């Protein structure tokens, strides 16, 4: 047994030696996200944002003298598929770090393996509050899960603030899908409502691919709801909006950031008008960095009508690789623990699309997006725009930890 172990150690050392011998080998970074199904606009926009940043980095000479190579895998928004992809990325592709996850469930199921392998994993879309909270001290001395998306705790608070405080709609119904995302988001909404002393008049759920929302909407309507708060993804949200029209019942729809997805806006058509949601990024060139990003994205991928399918995902994808690259540069190596340590004490000021990141993470804080960064977006004429003019005029919102 000991001899076997010794032998395998030698083998590992030999392999490691042969790997490091080729210093010009590309740095492999995994991308795991849904490229198919209802969540695909998020995954694809994010991937394109990442590719845009990688092209810029590689053109400028790469990282540590090496080029970045992306290993893209479709996790199909399925938890079990995400785990499969994860194992492939870690054990077969030997990635240095992984970016992605549009779905909270997939992120929760997959990040464990990176934690065990001591490889940093960067959640740049999925917003479930617990994603970065799974591996905390004292049980786990170091946490390898980072995020640059507005987690649900922030979003739920903003949704409730918008509905209850700004618009004085106190009788609200929660409609969510029955995935991890929808159910956890509903919990966050309940908490945020309770903090304002409000109890939802109805809480209804539905399944992915449900085509009829009559029962859910009628229950909300009968309970006297003045607004609908949602936690679901594009296609089903569109069925909710279309269902309201069918019942001839129109109340404001306010929900998580997924209400900005192209497949919600297209499928709901005119019914998407006026819908509001928290956004970390709105496709509006109100800073030089954003202007350059939007122009480069539209030029490279030519999205229909010049509208990025999920602008938030594209921007966060772009920023996530910038943050990671800065950490690798600072660490001077592609060693997992060294990158993690560099991320937790990032010295470089990273000029991203969403914001300018100054010390975005620390050992105990792995959320780059703070409560003051997201703004409220509104759908107008098929585009997501700023709901409040003062937020549009005041684009640069720095993190407040």
């Amino acid at each position: 047994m000991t001899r076997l172990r010794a032998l395998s150690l030698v083998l590992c050392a030999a392999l490691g030696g042969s790997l490091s011998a080729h210093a010009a080998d590309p740095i492999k970074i995994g991308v795991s996200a849904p490229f198919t199904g209802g969540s695909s606009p998020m995954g694809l926009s994010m991937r394109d944002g990442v590719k845009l940043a990688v092209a810029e980095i590689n053109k400028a000479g790469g990282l540590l003298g090496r080029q970045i190579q992306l290993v893209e895998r479709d996790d199909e928004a399925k938890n079990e598929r995400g785990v499969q992809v994860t194992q492939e990325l870690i054990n077969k592709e030997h990635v240095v770090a992984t970016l992605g996850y549009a779905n909270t469930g997939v992120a929760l199921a997959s990040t464990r393996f990176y934690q065990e392998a001591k490889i940093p994993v960067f959640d740049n879309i999925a917003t479930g509050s617990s994603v970065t909270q799974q591996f905390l001290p004292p049980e786990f001395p170091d946490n390898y899960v980072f995020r640059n998306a507005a987690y649900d705790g922030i979003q739920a608070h903003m949704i409730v603030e918008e509905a209850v405080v700004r618009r004085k709609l106190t009788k609200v119904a929660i409609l969510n899908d029955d995935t991890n995302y929808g159910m956890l988001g509903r919990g966050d909404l309940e908490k945020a409502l309770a903090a304002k002393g409000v109890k939802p008049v109805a809480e209804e759920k539905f399944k992915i691919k449900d085509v009829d929302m009559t029962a859910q909407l009628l229950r909300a309507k009968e309970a006297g709801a003045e607004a609908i708060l949602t936690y679901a993804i594009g296609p089903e949200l569109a069925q909710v909006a279309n269902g309201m029209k069918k019942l001839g019942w129109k109340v404001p729809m306010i929900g998580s950031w997924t209400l900005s997805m192209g497949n919600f806006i297209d499928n709901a058509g005119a019914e998407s008008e006026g819908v509001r949601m928290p956004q970390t990024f709105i496709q509006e060139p109100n800073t030089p960095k954003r202007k350059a990003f939007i122009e480069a994205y539209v030029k490279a991928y030519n999205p229909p009508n010049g509208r990025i399918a999920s602008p938030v995902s594209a921007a966060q994808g772009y920023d996530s690789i910038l943050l990671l690259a800065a950490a690798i540069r600072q660490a001077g190596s592609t060693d997992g623990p060294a990158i993690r340590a560099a991320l937790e004490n990032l010295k470089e000021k990273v000029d991203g699309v969403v914001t300018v990141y100054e010390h975005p993470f620390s050992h105990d804080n792995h959320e780059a997006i703070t409560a003051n960064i997201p703004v409220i977006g509104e759908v107008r004429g098929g585009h997501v725009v700023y709901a409040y003019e003062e937020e549009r005029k005041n684009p640069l919102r720095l993190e407040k930890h």
Partner: protein
Amino acid sequence: MAILLQLLLSGIALGMIYAVIAFGYQSTFATSGTLNFGQGEALMLGALVGLSLAGTISGGPYLNYWVMIPPVLIFGALQGIVVERVAVRPAIKTRSEFGWIMSTIALGIIFRNVAENVWGRDDLPFPSPLPTEPLHFLGASVLPMELLVVVGALLMMVGVEVFNRRSIYGKAVVATASDRDAAGLMGINTSLVITFSYALSSMTAAFAGVLIAPVTLTGASMGTALGLKAFAVAIIGGLNSGLGVVVGGILLGVAETTTGFYVSTGYKDVPGLVLLLLVLSVKPSGLFGKTTIKKV
């Protein structure tokens, strides 16, 4: 009262969507004792071909909604012939009891992947040929398109029934359905009849696709969940009864909406499945199915 009416109307509209898909399972089961488990995919292909012709996604619209229907029907029939030739005929020839199950499922997956590559993976809106403003009566509302689904489904079923009873070709189908060997001895080309029944089955599915697409969403994955629900409806109603699928569909649709409202939206799908189990244990041939005695 208005609420109950609304739930009933929505349930019926939903149920007719299931019924119109379930109808496709029947025609092949009657003639060959086999089913196309890719029925949901046949529906999806019909809807997407229809969308390419009548929508703007491939540079159209080339045809308006009504003119688009005949080409979609022809496409559906051809697709059904492919399914029969590739997946079912070899299994029937070798008298394989279950080979067709796997091969129709496999073909369905292939069709879905092809559709994902041709039309993309996202859900797309299908332009409605009728006004999208709901009609109101007695406090309940219903979309004109939902009425069209009900009317279209019924017309289609009546059409097939009349064809079977009145035309000589239909009689060949009925004869093959009641006894394939005897029909063969009487000079009926039964394998051609089976091919025809597959063409008919996929044609109804394609028609169902363009009929329901404006109310649901259109995309490569639209058929999977609906195909399964429709299969449950076909079992509840009986695999050899046209009336059965209508009643089964409406039962399932109404059960879903009323349970969703009166019990909890979390339990929406439970009564339908309980009904399925009940039917299977009490009357396995379905509510309106004829019991067949299998001699061995």
